[in-house]
């Protein structure tokens, strides 16, 4: 496996970015392998969302280059290969008069192209994807009438409906209750394992995330760590204090519901060691 030429879903090379005069990202170098499930962690204001926006072409880097599936982002056109679930999905206008079916259909609009409507096959695909996230019985329900966790599933379906090879999620669990978060992570892990979709999950929920992902990247302006999730788990404490400073314990107390020692035995973590 080591000899095999690894192909990357995302290649970030020497990327820097600043808002006005303020440096947000400095010289980021990161290659994300196809089929991996990457947890991207860092404190608030560490540039996680900015890095994601750069990868999606929503922002342009001040220097350096980004490649998606081997193509320079400036020339990249297969946007239907990339699904995106934004942080803002939690704070959309909840009065928006649209059904679950309509919202999920939006994921296909770019793929279908100009001047054309959804075909029967497309509609079937929308229904299947809604079923995939377990929301079939809510197909005709207004999106505003769902709970936060259910809405998040709908947004995942919207991102998945175009059958992307890469799914990027920016803090998708903000405002979602704990039980739903666990189910949600499990759903992502299953997607990654069964469909081979490359996943990038941005989160500051360091504790729960490490049980599900295959790789972890720690970001705070610069990239502090990028490697397997079990490597990360071993060096977690030193990593955390390097990144967060002295507030580590407070943070872990809030977010980490797992005992550290047990998390190594978890079968999800064990799987990533084989990759």
């Amino acid at each position, binding site marked *: 496996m080591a000899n095999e030429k690894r192909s990357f879903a995302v290649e970030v090379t020497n990327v820097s970015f600043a808002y006005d005069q303020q440096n947000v990202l400095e010289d980021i170098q990161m290659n994300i392998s196809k089929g991996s499930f990457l947890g991207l962690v860092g404190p608030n204001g560490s540039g996680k969302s900015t890095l994601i926006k750069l990868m*999606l*072409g*929503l922002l342009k880097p001040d220097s350096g280059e980004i490649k998606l599936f081997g193509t320079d982002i400036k020339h990249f*056109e297969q*946007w*239907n290969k*990339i699904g*995106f679930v*934004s942080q*803002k*999905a939690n704070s*959309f*206008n909840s009065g*928006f*008069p*649209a*059904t679950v*079916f*309509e*919202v999920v*259909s*939006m*994921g296909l*609009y*770019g*793929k*279908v192209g*100009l*001047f054309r*409507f*959804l075909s029967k096959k497309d509609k079937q695909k929308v229904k299947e994807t809604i079923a995939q996230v377990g929301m079939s019985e809510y197909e*005709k329900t*207004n999106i505003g009438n769902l709970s936060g966790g259910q809405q998040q599933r709908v947004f995942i379906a*919207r*991102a998945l409906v*175009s059958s992307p090879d890469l799914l990027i999620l920016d803090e998708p669990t903000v405002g979602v209750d704990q039980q739903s978060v666990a189910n949600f992570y499990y759903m992502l892990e299953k997607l990654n394992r069964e469909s081979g979709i490359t996943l990038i999950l941005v989160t500051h929920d360091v504790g729960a995330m490490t049980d599900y992902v295959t790789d972890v990247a720690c970001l705070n302006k610069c990239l502090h760590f990028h490697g397997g999730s079990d490597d990360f788990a071993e060096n977690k404490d030193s990593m955390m204090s390097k990144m967060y400073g002295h507030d580590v314990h407070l943070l872990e107390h809030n977010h980490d519901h797992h005992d550290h020692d047990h998390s190594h035995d978890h079968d999800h973590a064990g799987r990533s060691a084989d990759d």
Partner: protein
Amino acid sequence: MELLQGLSFLERGIAAGLMIGLIAPVVGAFLLVRRMTIISEGLSQVTLTGIATGVLMNQTMVWTEGINPLYTGFFFALIGSLVVERLRTVYKHFQELAIPVILSAGLGMSAILISSSGVSNTEWFNFLFGSIITVSAGDLLFIFIAGAAGLMILGLFYKEWLSISFDAEFAYTTGISVKWMNFLFAVLIALVISMSISVVGVLLVGALVTLPVASSLQLANSFRQVILYGILFGEGAVILGVIGSYYLNIATGGMIVVTGIILLFAAAGMKKVIHRCKRKSYLARLKEASS
């Protein structure tokens, strides 16, 4: 054109009203979900500036004689619409600021142009409040061309606009050109505002764009329903308004708007009734299950 001239003044008025009743609510539905229904108020004032310019050009320059002021009205509405779009990106966090800027600019310029035009007050009154009986064959032609163009681009870009309105960032990541779509939407708004002026007038255009969707929002569950019910409410207001104004001999524009308001109350009442019925049957079922 000959066909249009063959129609009686009442038939022309009704045809114009039906076209507007069809397209205004559809545009209104998109304005609603983009939280910019108020834009119609601002743009109608700019359209007035355009109409005043058209009237003035007809008076002063021999070579433009015969140009329908609605065309200059549309041209100004288009510029205004694009300026609003631009202002919304400049004042990203205060997007509503664009409206008073464009509204006062339009009204100010209109005041200057009108005062120097020397046209009778009655004519300006028609522009302000609309007059279905003075819809000329030329006006009707403009309304049909603008309406057909509007309906065509609505059909073509319905899904792109829906996606952008719901979540522009996501729409961009699916490969939709948000900039282009926003530009086309600005064109659409300008078309609809300028074609509505001759029937309901500058001051009442906003009502035709917003009232039908305000009513349909009471009853609709999906965006598609917002549009379908909106068209029903829009056409309902136009037809009932025209009939009412004919028999009561009062201003048509005003009557259409007042009918729209009545329909809004009716829709709200209907929602309550539906809600109560659902609740009743739910409670009955609950009782049945427990006994």
